[in-house]
């Protein structure tokens, strides 16, 4: 049930939205959806590694804001290719949370909640709350935000990253160890898995990808805003869970998260086309998250629900 329910949800939504608006099921709209989904795919695929361990990264949204700000400032001051540094900046910042979580053994929930606030504050302090606009003739703009044979390049990049992440999760030792840590940390330790180091690695991956997501978002909106990534936190976590990776970790994976992102994006896109009030859209999204948890979690096996 948990394996096929995201597909059922997708199919049901496509049928409903097609019935509501003829423009929904067109190639143009499909391209729209891909473009809208791209940033969220990159961000939540990174977060999937953290959730697979049974931990959580609440800082992913603020990390996108940080990345957007850094990218815009670097482009402004050092030319557009300096943007390459951005994922490494966010990776370093994420390493702080990773070290506190993995080596100082602080719970990831509180560590990353603290990081969320600290990063937000820092971004607002550095920018003084001001937006930074980008020049319009960037080469990276055509690479990451252009179009190739009618397909938005950002979507191609996102799909490439998601495929790479899926490969890493299923076919590498790193991926297997992350599943093992989520499924039973003590066991992993007793098998000789260097648990703390791999926990840190997962945070580095998540940090790096939130930097990439931040660049993509910045290019799409044509500049940075110090709070631009903040609203992405909940969709990023919801996409992971709706795809089929429970917060308890150990099962699921990045390939499932792609589905979760598509569900959220199609839901938003379809409701926009059907002229659903934007406030009510949030109500539907919230209900969708709860429904996904209800279907995916093996509640009979849980001793207690907290």
């Amino acid at each position, binding site marked *: 049930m948990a394996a096929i329910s995201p597909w059922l949800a997708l199919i049901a939504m496509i049928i409903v939205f097609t019935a509501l608006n003829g423009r929904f099921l067109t190639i143009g709209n499909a391209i729209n959806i891909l473009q809208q989904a791209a940033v969220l795919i990159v961000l939540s695929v990174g977060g999937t590694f953290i959730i697979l361990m049974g931990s959580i990264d609440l800082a992913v949204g603020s990390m996108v804001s940080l990345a957007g700000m850094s990218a815009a400032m670097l482009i402004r001051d050092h030319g557009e290719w300096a943007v390459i540094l951005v994922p490494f900046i966010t990776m370093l910042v994420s390493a702080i949370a990773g070290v506190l979580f993995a080596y100082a053994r602080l719970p990831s929930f509180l560590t990353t909640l603290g990081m969320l606030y600290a990063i937000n504050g820092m971004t607002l302090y550095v920018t003084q709350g001001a937006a930074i606009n980008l020049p319009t003739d960037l080469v990276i703009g055509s690479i990451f935000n252009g179009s190739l044979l009618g397909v938005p390049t950002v979507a191609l990049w996102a799909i490439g990253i998601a495929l790479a992440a899926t490969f890493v999760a299923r*076919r590498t030792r790193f991926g297997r160890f992350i599943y*093992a840590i989520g*499924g039973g940390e003590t066991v*992993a330790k*007793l098998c*000789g898995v260097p648990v703390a180091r791999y926990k840190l690695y997962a945070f580095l991956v998540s940090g790096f990808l939130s930097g990439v997501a931040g660049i993509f978002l910045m290019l799409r909106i044509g500049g940075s805003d110090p709070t631009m990534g903040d609203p992405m936190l909940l969709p990023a976590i919801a996409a992971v869970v709706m795809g089929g990776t429970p917060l308890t970790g*150990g099962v699921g994976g990045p390939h499932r998260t792609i589905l979760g992102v598509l569900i959220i994006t199609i839901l938003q896109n379809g409701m926009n086309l059907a002229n659903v009030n934007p406030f009510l859209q949030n109500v539907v999204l919230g209900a969708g998250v709860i429904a996904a948890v209800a279907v995916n979690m093996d509640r009979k096996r849980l001793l207690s629900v907290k």
Partner: protein
Amino acid sequence: MAGSSSATERPGTLGAGRTAASERIGSASPPLLEIRNIGKSFGGVRALSGVSLTLRKGEVIGLVGENGAGKSTLLKTISGNLRPDSGALLVNGRDVSLRNYADANREGIFHIYQDLALIPTLSVYENMLLAHEGAFSRFGVVDNRAMLRHVTDLLAEFGHERIDASRKVETYDLSTRQVIEIIKSFALAKLAGIESPVMLLDEPTAALTGDEVEFLMRLIQATRERAAIIYVSHRLSEVIEISDRLYVLKDGAMVAELPATGLAENRLHELMVGRTRDEFFYCEHKQQEPQGEVVLEVGGLSRTGSFADVAFNLRGGEILGVAGLLGSGKSDLGGVLAGALSGATGTIRVGGTIVPKNLSIRVMSDLGIGYLPPDRRDGVIPPLSVASNMSLARLTRHGERYWLNLAGERRDAVEFVATLGIKTAGIDAQISTLSGGNQQKVLLARWLLRQTKVLILDNPTNGVDAGAKEEIYGVLRRIAAEGVGILLVSDDLLELIGLSNRILVMRGGTLVREVPAPPNGKPGEVELVADMV
């Protein structure tokens, strides 16, 4: 004490309470609890059929049977957690129908669970009277002092004044928690106006060892006059020791009711599984004189608070048993040698290589040491497949590639499922769908895959039924025959005696004796116990 075979071998401790109840059996009053022809099915599968049982005040009856024989189902039926399809339940001769556990409590029936049903973060008195605060409330306000007083008095009544009722349960060790749990049933019975409760003890010693078991036994002796107890345990010697009578369940039916006095464990095994347990159970005919080199050499090994100055050699192909009570340091010795516990001093050589000072699991496993921890939950990763669970230790090998070789992993898994006779729906099945014994075989395969020279096993058959035990023993013999040295740490004395070439006896952190155990000259349990205590 897990392994001793009968009360007569352990004079002075137990057995005193047995006569009192036997005298009452002839009396006219109805039994405290009577079960008549209870039947229960789950989706067409019969879990219990025509089960009957009687229990009188002051009596302890033992309930034994293999895993899946229906013991838990029967207990749940008695405690109102399951409703029987047919049959009757009589309390004091009165036909009762229990809808839930609260109903059972009102009739004075209490189920004391395998994993203790106490909330660690609440105090002793809050735990004992949980869900019964109403009796101590006025206008909806709970009188905590009255509750505390009530519980303190009760603890004193049972001679456990040392337990502070206002302290949190988590500050007490397992055996004390068991005491709290047992006295809790008396507390609740008293509240319900019942003088003698029926207590269902489900594997009460599964989490305990040595001294703690002894302590529990004494507690049962001390309280049996005021209660009636159904005692369920895999540790047959323990059941024989504590019970007046035994009931044997097999495949959901009661196959025997026997007096405990003079009962031999072999006889019970025969009734439970329908075969005689003898030296073949431990494959003693396959025991070989170890021909191999010394694979593990330990000298002057000490760890503060665990053990001191331990020295021994283990040869390839040898099974070396380690016996001892809880606190003897035997479990910690296994943990240190596996690299799971730090802070030890002394010398360890694995296959001639001196182990560096700071032990770690990675260092030890790269040298060829594999470890099965005492708790299977520390061994299996439930959501992962059989194949992934099996390959996990191999993947941590020094110099292992970053990419997984999935085809190789599947090949290995298929091979080990066949050679170790692992019963599973397939190598992709989640390991949590396997029975305990088969999970344990997967864990053995995990270390064999890593080309292990020394296997350290801590209670490898804990909580495994007799049939699966026999299979695991067969596997261990085969592993030894292939030249692996096995250090077997166990609370099951018969297992130690049956499997080992030699047995090291530990007491209070030191190695007190080495007992040879050749196939034709196995030591007796009494001989080992004498050195253990």
